[in-house]
């Protein structure tokens, strides 16, 4: 005769258990099921799609009436069991059915926990556990109105999303600071909250609900801070409790749940417990995967096979359409733990793996969960991930290739290592910003950390850090765009300006499909320079696209005052110029006067409105703007040369003055500083200048591409010139080549490194026709450029710059 197997409860755990049982031992058991619900077995995981209207009840049935019939299962619907008589081995249901058992399985599941706050029994307060709850919510949605969901866990959020899709005005109240805090870390919890808010659901975290308000039905919810949220429906989804009351009443050992051993057996050898009501090794599970595992173990135990349940590692997926979320294991932080984080802000992706001893112990995936099962599998198998550490976070598809070169040198730097000297940014700050702000390129790092944003000399290191931190995800564009307004690099833009005959900034922006309406502070000055350099006499300089220094022809200082530097040709001056400078300093109460490194005098602390007055007085003494503010010709430093020095071989001062008078006013990609030394002792320090001349007995050695600022770099020798005229022509042609090829803000040494000195020599030294063409173009350009900007402004140009628009005295009311 068949053994009598009685099951209390008709959920997913016993359903799976029975399938295993019937497969392994068909006909061995005579099965009777008591179901408290008036229906067959359905997939409770799919309740949320039913609530949201995406599925119907019929679609989620797992075992229909025909299944029970085919397997000779007696199903008592609407028959909750009230009593277990262990001596008689019978159970009794509320509707009076008595069944005898040889083996009893308690699978009563769990019940929602409803906090016993005032008003919790009012009509309109529902839980979210079974189809009846769903029906109640759907009915409430048909009436419409406001719903409050208490609990921002898995169930609460699914309920909220479903109610929202049915048109309710939904508020989620959650006690913890972030949603699903047991399954998600705060970062993913934040993304989740954002996604809910985007759906029009109000989320209130740290919400401590005090009371459900209403007289004969729910009218609102009161929080402990006094906030009242109106509500027509309140869903309690704060948690579940194992339903163990029946077992407890029968004297079976119960802790939080019904205590079972590794065979799912209670302390009564004829009685087993399964699913959410069971407690195994101190754990009660509320997710389906462990319950299935328990079902398999129990089926084997019942037919006498050896099987032992070892507990489960669980993973969670939120079942809300459009929100991809996966979490598994333990993702808390700890000293013995490492984490790998990948973020993609635009795509809304967040992935975090927590590792311990090179094994995954936790995973949170948001936005892109395709690799969830793969990570979960490694987590359960305790797979050693050392070999794939560099690419692990990118998922299964990225494995198998050769491991990335982690760029040992940069990778080995300690976090405190300073990367950007200008802004005092260390490695740790950069890598932290890359991960926490989801930075993927140099511009992002510059914006957030300022690293490499000032002088740019650490750009290479920062790029390596990007590469080391992001691995393959960092893909520096082959061409670095000029700025965020365009995809084109500087060189492309310049080529197009010539090729398409573009002669104004709006035209460039239109033809090259600028992404912004009128550019930004990066591209506008660059475009203005390119147009100035490429269309002399045709393009009208746009002052509003110039940095303030070039617009007002003085250097802005940290306090908003300006410094004024008049030209002293070749560093030569005389008593009347010095007297005029002294008088100006007195007259305008200029607080500081300093000798510069470029052999001239700097007047510091001039108020903006005084600038025209200062310039007028300096002009009157014969001085013009020294362009100390300009991306253009600055100074030509000289030594006294053959005029005075016993070692001087040529008139270095004279050549310096001649060069400065020839070239002043020219705009260049970046500042341009020259020097002429009268002998190889090089007192004018010509061999660290943009362009330098070292006079020798036989003529002039022409140097270029030196640097003595952010970088220290000795010049390279361009060529030798026999005469002063030839030297001047070479220097002018070189400058013009730089003007035409240099990217905005690119100093000569950087330009030379980029294009290579052979190409420069080919144009300037080896091909005399070309040299002449460059020279001629410079000379033509100078006919428009050599206007003293100070004089123009003394005569009234841009007067608006230097005067306030309006003045307001103190008591306006007095008028």
């Amino acid at each position: 005769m068949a053994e009598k197997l009685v099951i209390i409860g008709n959920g997913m755990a016993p359903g799976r258990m029975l399938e295993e049982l019937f497969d392994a031992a068909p006909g061995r058991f005579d099965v009777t099921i008591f179901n408290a619900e008036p229906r067959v077995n359905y997939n409770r995981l799919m309740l949320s799609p039913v609530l949201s209207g995406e599925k119907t009840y019929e679609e989620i049935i797992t075992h229909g009436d025909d299944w029970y019939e085919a397997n000779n299962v007696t199903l008592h619907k609407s028959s909750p069991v009230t009593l277990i008589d262990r001596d008689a081995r019978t159970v009794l249901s509320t509707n009076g059915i008595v069944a005898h058992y040889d083996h009893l399985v308690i699978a009563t599941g769990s019940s929602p926990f409803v906090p016993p706050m005032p008003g919790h029994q009012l009509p309109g307060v529902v839980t979210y556990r079974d189809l009846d709850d769903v029906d109640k919510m759907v009915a409430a949605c048909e009436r419409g109105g406001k719903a409050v969901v208490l609990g921002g866990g898995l169930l609460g959020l699914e309920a909220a999303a479903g109610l929202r899709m049915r048109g309710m005005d939904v508020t989620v109240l959650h006690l913890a600071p972030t949603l699903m805090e047991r399954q998600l870390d705060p970062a993913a919890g934040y993304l989740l909250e954002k996604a809910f808010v985007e759906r029009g659901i109000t989320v209130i975290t740290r919400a401590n609900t005090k009371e459900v308000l209403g007289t004969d039905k729910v009218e609102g919810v009161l929080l402990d801070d006094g906030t009242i949220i109106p509500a027509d429906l309140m869903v309690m989804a704060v948690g579940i409790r194992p339903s163990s009351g029946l077992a407890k009443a029968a004297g079976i050992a119960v802790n939080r749940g019904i205590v079972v051993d590794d065979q799912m057996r209670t302390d009564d050898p004829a009685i087993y417990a399964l699913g959410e009501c069971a407690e195994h090794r101190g754990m009660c599970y509320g997710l389906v995967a462990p319950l299935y595992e328990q079902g398999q173990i129990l089926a084997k135990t019942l037919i006498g096979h050896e099987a032992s349940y070892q507990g489960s590692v669980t993973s969670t997926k939120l079942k809300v359409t459009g929100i991809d979320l996966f979490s598994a294991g333990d993702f808390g932080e700890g000293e013995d733990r490492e984490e790998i984080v990948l973020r993609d802000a635009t795509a809304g992706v967040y992935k975090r793996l927590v590792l311990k001893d090179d094994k995954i112990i936790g995973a949170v995936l948001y936005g892109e969960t395709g690799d969830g099962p793969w990570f979960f599998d490694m987590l359960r198998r305790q797979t050693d991930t050392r070999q794939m550490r560099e690419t692990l976070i990118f998922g299964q598809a990225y494995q198998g290739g050769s491991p990335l070169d982690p760029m040992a040198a940069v990778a080995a730097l300690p976090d405190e290592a300073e990367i950007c000297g200008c802004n005092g940014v260390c490695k740790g700050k950069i890598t932290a910003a890359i991960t926490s702000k989801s930075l993927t390129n140099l511009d992002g790092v510059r914006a957030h950390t300022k690293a490499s944003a000032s002088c740019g000399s650490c750009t290479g290191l920062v790029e390596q850090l990007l590469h080391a931190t992001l691995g393959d995800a960092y893909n520096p564009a082959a061409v670095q765009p000029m700025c965020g307004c365009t995809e084109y690099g500087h060189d492309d833009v310049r080529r197009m300006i010539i090729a398409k005959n573009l002669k104004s900034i709006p035209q460039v922006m239109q033809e090259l499909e600028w992404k912004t309406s009128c550019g930004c502070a990066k591209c506008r000055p660059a475009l203005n320079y390119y147009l100035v350099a490429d269309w002399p006499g045709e393009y009208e300089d746009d002052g509003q696209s110039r940095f303030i220094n070039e617009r007002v022809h003085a250097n802005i200082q940290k306090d908003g005052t300006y410094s004024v530097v008049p030209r002293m040709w070749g560093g030569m001056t005389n008593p009347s110029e010095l007297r005029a400078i002294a008088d100006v300093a007195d007259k305008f109460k200029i607080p500081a006067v300093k000798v510069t490194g470029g052999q001239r005098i700097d007047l510091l602390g001039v108020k903006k409105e005084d600038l025209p007055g200062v310039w007028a007085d300096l002009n009157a003494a014969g001085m013009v703007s020294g362009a100390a503010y300009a991306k253009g010709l600055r100074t030509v430093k000289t030594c006294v040369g053959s005029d005075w020095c016993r070692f001087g071989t040529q008139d270095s001062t004279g050549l310096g003055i001649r060069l400065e008078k020839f070239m002043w006013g020219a705009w260049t990609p970046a500042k341009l500083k020259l020097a002429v030394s009268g002998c190889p002792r090089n007192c004018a320090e010509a061999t660290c200048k943009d362009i330098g001349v070292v006079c020798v007995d036989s003529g002039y050695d022409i140097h270029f591409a030196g640097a003595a600022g952010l970088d220290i770099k000795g010049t390279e020798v361009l060529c030798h010139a026999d005469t002063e005229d030839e030297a001047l022509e070479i220097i002018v042609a070189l400058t013009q080549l730089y003007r035409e090829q240099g990217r905005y803000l690119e100093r000569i040494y950087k330009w030379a490194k980029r294009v290579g000195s052979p190409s420069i020599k080919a144009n300037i030294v080896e091909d005399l026709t070309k040299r002449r063409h460059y020279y001629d173009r410079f000379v033509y350009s100078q006919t428009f450029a050599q206007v003293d900007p100070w004089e123009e402004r003394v005569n009234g140009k841009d007067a608006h710059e230097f005067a306030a628009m309006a003045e307001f005295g103190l008591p306006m009311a007095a008028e």
Partner: protein
Amino acid sequence: MHQTNTVPQTEWVEIGTVDAIPRRGARCINTPTGKIAVFRTQEDQIFAIENRCPHKNGPLSEGIVHGASVTCPLHNWVFDLQTGKALGADEGQVRTYPIDVIDGRIFIVPDLMMAAAE
């Protein structure tokens, strides 16, 4: 530009004309409590904000104007002229002042400017 509805019964005072400010530029109004920068965009919108970058007090009126934003001349912070909020990665806020433009003449409320230092 037209924010009259946010201002209670107040006296509007003319400070100058739109033409007096260069497009994509700014000019200042001096008040006892500091300078206010009045901006004119490419599209002739007029905005008034505090002429002081919260970062290191840079004079925002000297910055490059692009769209309805200005880039501080000292360290390139970018501010939205409409809201006064720092854009991009920087965080900060400058005060904004209601402006009304009628027939090319710009009006401001002196009382609100005087409140700048409070």
